[in-house]
């Protein structure tokens, strides 16, 4: 075994950065070992309990899907005029969660934010699994999911083509593109880590599977050279892509004439809401996971602190969106618009609206205070409330608007059925199941990037000390 670089304390000595990004005495080898430990060790009791729970929930999901397929959309609470309800609420909710993953992994690459190294893999996995849930809902909502391929332009015996002036084909292309690009970006970043897992694997089975999936990665300088160019390009492509996806999702509403939907603020407001909810989900998942997987040394309190600040910033953007919606409903002088928003504030679902105001507008302001940002219990509950608040937001966009449109004679109430609720709970379980398997089989933190960061921090510290050594005699001389 080669003599490796000595483990050394990496915390920054910069007074402007009091909290370190990597804690404790670390070396490249120790970081690799500690980050691979969660997949190398035997799973504990909690893992099996959670696996059983999420498997059970996924069973419920399958049951609800089967009922939907056999009985049709009539099994849902949807009616006329509330033709869109849980199916679309859940779709927008899930796809929104994905956006923080792409924000963290792509936009922060372009801005060279080093702290992303510890959380990007985690957030990207969340993106993939959330988009998988999201994709299921519009397909089920079609009523006849087995002919979903009619949305794709292919030469067919019926000689008909999809109407591309409708937002449904836009959604299809946006979601499949988003999923494909996220998957490729994630897998490309994963290759070097899979190679590390292969090289450290002690069982033949581990060596074989990590060997297959790392595709033969050697870490050759020639490969790194192309890899870096490709990774940066994918980040550059993913950045406008993530903005376009939720913009297109918002078009589902904004291009309609329904009061409460037909609004130009929708695209940016949906994007901000998506990132807001995604950051909340990152925090909801990160806080319990980092301790139990022993990742506290790379996902430090500083990361939680930064994520809280981002949550506060995006929360204020979302609040601005709410303000705009209600202001323009009033300023337009359009009575249908005004009635629709008045109904949101005071109608049947007003309690949901006010919960949304509390969780999405008021609650994020706790993060102005450092004491509360570093209190993990407060952070976790606030993030959980935002997750729920963002679901409620989509509910209050969709259901009250449809239930009370132009003609009072066509107004109708809405109640979800057990199938609706099972689909929601079931998709959460399925997401949990995928996430659990991810944590078991794939390094949850990008080992390569953390090692690179560790190296850079050490270099920066050495350069700083060197500067201080050479500068202080000069200063003394001047004095």
């Amino acid at each position, binding site marked *: *075994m*080669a*003599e*490796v*670089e000595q483990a050394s304390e990496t915390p920054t000595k910069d007074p402007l950065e009091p909290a370190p990004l990597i804690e404790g005495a670390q070396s*490249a*080898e120790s970081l*690799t*070992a500690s980050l691979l430990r969660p997949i190398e060790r035997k799973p504990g009791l909690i893992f099996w309990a959670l696996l059983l729970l999420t498997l059970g929930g996924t069973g419920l999901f399958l049951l609800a899907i089967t009922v939907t397929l056999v009985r049709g959309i009539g099994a849902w609470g949807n009616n006329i005029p509330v033709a869109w309800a849980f199916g679309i609420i859940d779709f927008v909710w899930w796809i929104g969660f994905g956006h923080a993953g792409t924000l963290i992994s792509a936009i922060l690459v372009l801005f060279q934010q080093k702290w992303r190294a510890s959380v990007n893999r985690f957030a990207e996995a969340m993106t993939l699994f959330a988009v998988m849930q999201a994709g299921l809902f519009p397909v089920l909502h079609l009523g006849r999911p087995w002919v979903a391929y009619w949305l794709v*332009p292919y030469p067919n015996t019926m000689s008909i*083509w999809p*109407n*591309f*002036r409708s937002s449904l*084909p*836009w959604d299809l*292309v*946006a979601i*499949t*593109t988003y999923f*494909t*690009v996220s998957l*490729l*970006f994630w*897998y*490309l970043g994963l290759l*070097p880590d899979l190679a*590390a897992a*292969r*090289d*450290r694997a002690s069982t033949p089975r581990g060596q074989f599977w990590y*060997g*297959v999936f790392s*595709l*033969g*990665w*050697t*870490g*050759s*300088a*020639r*490969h*790194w*050279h*192309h*890899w*870096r*160019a*490709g990774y940066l*390009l*994918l980040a550059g*492509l993913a950045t*406008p892509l993530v903005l*376009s996806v939720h913009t*297109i999702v918002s*078009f589902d509403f904004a291009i309609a004439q329904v009061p409460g939907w037909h609004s130009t603020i929708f695209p940016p407001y949906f994007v901000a809401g998506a990132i807001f909810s995604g950051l909340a989900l990152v925090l909801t998942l990160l806080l319990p996971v980092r301790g139990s997987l022993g990742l506290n040394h790379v996902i430090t309190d500083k990361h939680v602190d930064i994520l809280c600040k981002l949550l506060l910033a995006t929360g204020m953007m979302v609040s601005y969106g709410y303000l705009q919606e209600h202001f323009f409903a009033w300023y337009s002088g359009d009575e249908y618009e005004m009635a629709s928003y008045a109904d949101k504030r005071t109608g049947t679902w007003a309690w949901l609206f006010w919960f949304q105001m509390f969780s999405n507008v008021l609650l994020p302001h706790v993060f102005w205070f450092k004491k509360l940002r570093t209190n993990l219990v407060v952070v976790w509950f606030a993030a959980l409330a935002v997750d729920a608040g963002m679901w409620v937001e989509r509910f209050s966009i969709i259901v009250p608007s449809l239930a009370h449109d132009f003609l009072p004679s066509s107004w109708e109430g809405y109640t979800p059925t057990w199938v609706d609720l099972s689909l929601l709970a079931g998709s959460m379980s399925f997401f949990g199941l995928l996430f659990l398997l991810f944590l078991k089989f794939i390094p949850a933190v990008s080992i*390569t990037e953390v*090692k*690179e960061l560790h*190296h850079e921090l050490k270099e920066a510290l050495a350069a700083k000390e060197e500067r201080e050594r050479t500068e202080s005699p000069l200063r003394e001389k001047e004095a």
Partner: protein
Amino acid sequence: MRYWVVGEFGSGAEAKKALGRLRELGHAKEKLDAFTPYPVEGLDEVLGLKPSPIRGFAFMAGLSGAALGYAVQWWTNAVDWPLNVGNRPLNAGPAFVPITFETMVLFAALTIFFGLMWLFRFPRPHHPLFELETFRTASTGGFWVSITTERREETEALLGALRELKARNTSVVEEAS
């Protein structure tokens, strides 16, 4: 038959210095390579690597994706099956923008990924250096430098050169062809 002469160094900077020295000694850059756990700044220059062609591939693929996306929408909705919806224009430019943009990104991303696979010659689950037990550190914390040669008699001299540069764990691996 090809021989890989390899040695391990303690850091990226040491590996970079060793490679620079080997190039000064007159070794062709095509014969040299380094294997590191993370990308080391400056190795590209020492090895004299040209900018990656992947950028050009991505640009061309993006353009063709956008063109194809728009063409399909225009041909199907305006030419092959003109569908009059409320007398809206058949060639509806603004409505075709979302899909045109998405196909551009999709084509570029797929090309980047599969272009990289082609440049790497992946999947290649086996590499001659994987025979070497110590080489496993290349993905965890070791920095390796390699020189390849076709002539067996050269390997001793190359090993000596690497040891002179303070490489540890020096070895020769034979690649059967």
